[in-house]
């Protein structure tokens, strides 16, 4: 498990530069480490002079660097940087607040304390959950198959679905979950392939020859795909494979296949530029190639 990787319980890292030797204990993140250091010095979180633990924290972070991945290390570095700032400013415990820089550092300190305290509260809650879980794990629930006479007494089952619905359910469940994708959807939107949608349109139109745009988009799962399909139609039009009929403005758009009877290879450019969906205006400007 990723979290315990850094634990390397008992592993010693030798910081030859300062002659400082640290032993990596089990910790689950920078706050956890900080709390452990503070408690090691028997200091109260709310009053601790952080510079006392800054050096040790840095030493841990340095040792961690070789064992942990970039993500993990950066979290530690962030806290380490804050600690360093505070130490450098010698703000603690009582400093005269004169300029804005000092104020900012005070804020940084308070924020760090606040987050640390919050984490400490959850850590205690977690240890309570651990106790509950440990005792819960020692009890097994009754869960056995129904005795035959009761199984037979069950009312006749209504499946309530047909083969198609069952297939749809299977597809839904088997489709990769969005969960592992990590919530970056808002950063870079899903890409759709205009080329693939052009191929879909080609196959549909070869079969039906003529169809409304609405019908051609009937199986699109979201607006992005509809847009991709529209762009694909424009590409096909450029290639002279389709013709459009529209009786009146904003009326039904009818698409006719004019590309012959054989499935042809399509030469459609992908839209490699910014995602098709709307993005914040500030990021849309600029010379992104299309």
């Amino acid at each position, binding site marked *: 498990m990723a979290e*315990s990787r850094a634990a390397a319980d008992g592993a010693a890292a030798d910081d030859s530069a300062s002659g400082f030797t640290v032993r990596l204990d089990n910790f689950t993140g920078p706050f956890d480490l900080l709390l452990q250091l503070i408690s090691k010095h028997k200091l109260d979180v709310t009053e601790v002079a952080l510079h006392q633990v800054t050096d040790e924290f840095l030493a841990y972070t340095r040792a961690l660097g070789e064992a942990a991945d970039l993500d993990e290390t950066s979290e530690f570095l962030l806290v380490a940087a804050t600690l360093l700032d505070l130490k450098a400013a010698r703000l603690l415990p009582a400093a005269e607040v004169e300029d804005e820089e000092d104020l900012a550092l005070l804020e940084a300190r308070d924020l760090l304390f606040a987050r640390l305290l919050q984490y400490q509260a959850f850590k205690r809650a977690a240890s309570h959950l651990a106790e509950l879980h440990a005792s819960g794990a*020692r009890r097994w629930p*009754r869960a056995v198959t129904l005795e035959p006479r009761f199984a037979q007494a069950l009312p006749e089952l209504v499946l309530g679905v047909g083969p198609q619905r069952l297939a749809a359910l299977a597809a839904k469940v088997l489709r990769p979950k969005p969960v592992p994708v990590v919530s970056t959807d808002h950063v870079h939107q899903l890409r759709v392939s205009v080329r693939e949608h052009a191929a879909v349109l080609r196959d549909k139109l070869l079969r039906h020859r003529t169809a409304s745009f609405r019908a051609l988009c009937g199986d699109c799962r979201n607006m992005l795909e509809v847009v991709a399909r529209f762009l694909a139609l424009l590409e096909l039009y450029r290639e002279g494979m389709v013709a459009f009929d529209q009786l009146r403005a904003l009326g039904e758009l009818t698409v006719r296949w004019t590309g012959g009877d054989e499935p042809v290879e399509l030469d459609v450019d992908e839209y490699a530029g910014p995602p098709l969906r709307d993005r914040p205006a500030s990021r849309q400007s600029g010379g992104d190639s299309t």
Partner: protein
Amino acid sequence: MSQGPAGTDQPSGGSADPAELRAALEAIMLVVDEPVSETVLAGVLAQPVERVSAALGELSAEYTAAGRGFDLRQAAGGWRLYTRAELAPYVERFVLDGQQARLTQAALETLAVVAYKQPVTRSRISAVRGVNCDGVIRTLLARGLVEEAGTEPETGAYLYRTTNVFLEKLGLDSLDQLPSLAPLLPDDLEALDPDARRMRERADVD
């Protein structure tokens, strides 16, 4: 879950005899495979909920007093038979399904944040713990301890909450039984963290 004629006085087929009521409850508890609410039991037995509730409590106390191998417990909003915790070493030899793996410290901390702040996003959990929690969340999802609870309207980020499995595994009847966080939280946290205020308010309620 069916409602049944719960709480009504003696419709058809109710067993007035206390001994029979208790025996009927025991028989039913033997076939359930998830916690069953008092309401459902009362409906099936055509007895007032209070009576059923009292009988279940008595049975549970009796099993414990007699040191029986089974334990009738309230969990996740219902009643279910469990093996008594002290006898785990014996039961373990029969139940070898590897489901009993311990949760890591990271998983427990993440679970605690979800339990107290639900529904909550991953980034919010990561902020509290100071580390990325994606891997841990996946573990908790796979073990059925947390589940998705829609998305946050503003950001579209997935929200997570604890499940009934969580309650049952921890032996809790409801989330209200989680200890209050308030005594553990500093007073001045509110000013810095808007979520903390909500949390304290929630924690203060119980």
